[in-house]
């Protein structure tokens, strides 16, 4: 069953806070998302993503539907226009991906070595 959780971003005393049904927690700038995004969404409702099965805020994002239409494969062959990235974006944000890696490490799903490999790939990509 779909579990969509939304909350509101609050800016108070120099801090960014996330209010989900009255429960407030601090959002560290930079870990989950950047300051520009937070400034743009203060007072607005955002969707909150929790890693399952442990509740761990992975990221917040402005609610928007995916734009891809149709399956991304023909039998076991990828639909090439999907991989070519024509007309749509499907890659989750770097913030989500990075925090997933952290969550997976914390839960013991991946090792520190695998976590470091993943994180290093983002650093190397940034330098590409």
């Amino acid at each position, binding site marked *: 069953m*779909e579990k969509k959780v939304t909350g509101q971003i609050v800016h108070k005393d120099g801090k960014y806070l996330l209010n989900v049904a009255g429960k407030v927690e601090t959002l560290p700038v930079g870990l989950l998302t950047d300051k520009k995004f937070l400034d743009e969404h203060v007072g607005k409702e955002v969707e909150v993503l929790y890693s399952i099965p442990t509740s761990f805020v992975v990221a917040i994002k402005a609610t928007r539907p995916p734009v891809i239409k149709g*399956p*991304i494969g*023909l039998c076991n062959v*990828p639909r*090439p226009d999907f991989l070519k990235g024509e007309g749509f974006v499907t890659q989750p944000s770097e913030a*989500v991906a990075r925090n997933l890696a952290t969550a997976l490490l914390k839960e013991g799903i991946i090792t520190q070595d695998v976590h470091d490999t*993943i994180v*290093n790939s983002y650093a190397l990509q940034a330098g590409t």
Partner: protein
Amino acid sequence: MRVPVETVTRPDSLGGMPSIFVFELTRRCNHRCLYCYTAWGEPSLGYPASPREEMSTAEVKEFIDNLRSQAPVEYIALSGGEPLLREDLPEILAFIRNRGITPVIITNGTLLTKERVAASMVGGCYEISLHSYRAHVHDRMSGRDGAWNKVIEGMANVHSAGGRQMAAFVATKLNYMDLFHTAELAISLGCWGMLYNRINLGSYNLRYADELLPTPAMIQENLDMLEEIGATYAPFVVSVAIVIEPCVVDIRKYKHIYFGYCPKGGTNSYFTIDPVGNVRTCNHSPVILGNLKTDRFSNIFYQHPYVRQFRETMPAECADCEPELKSICRGGCDAAAEQCYGTANRVDPFVTLSRQASSKPS
């Protein structure tokens, strides 16, 4: 650049020729996957021998230009065996791109070193097998110890080089429970989507059916996971490519999963060229329709009796199915039936075996 397509006699109901082709560049492979369905992997299918025989670089180029003269080729998926075992892969990729065609590399991911990725990049697109977040499970399915570590390294190399990649998860009894965290791992590695494929039976892997074939309940559990993944991590796309027949699992309730069906040899099909130029309806089919060295692809597509039968076949077991579902599913994978039963006139063996499993006392 499109090449004019020759005019041949074609059924009025059939659209134009396909634009997607699979080139099996080699029979060689560094894995021995339990779920392998390649036609040459099973002697009983009588596929022509010479496992190391493959087209030369020049022949590959010639075949590509041959196809371009007959069909509006826009995309070529490079497969095998394992295509990265070919040292001339960068040259082939460059040739394809210079022809204005988009290549996709279907790989087990274990040979994606930094150097190989750099050589195959420039808009590189990859489909990479990732069957579990647990190394020993992935290795068991791949038939090779240490495979998982190489795959993770390979996917990280693709990601750091800015390549686009999708993870391919083949669902079996051995790994279905790992799907959720495996998808999360794929997301963390920068994948754009996940192809979920329940094992597609063939003559080779049929012997492992008891060990591998997931039950309908397991498939249902996986679809629930995929729905959660699709809802939680959008815009990451989850897609079911190998058909899940609606009579096995009711798929209609899922809003965040994209379901695909066999294009049945029509315009949206991907005809397959094997390592020596033989043509088949798809890479699961064991039936050779002709060879690009001697036959025109256009004649095969429009006039070969087997292709016509492939398009029109409706298994007898599906006669009483709901019309809406029947028109979409059309008996599932004909190629799997061909491999397992020697005829495409029977329903996909996945349906038959799933029903048998469901009827057994628990």
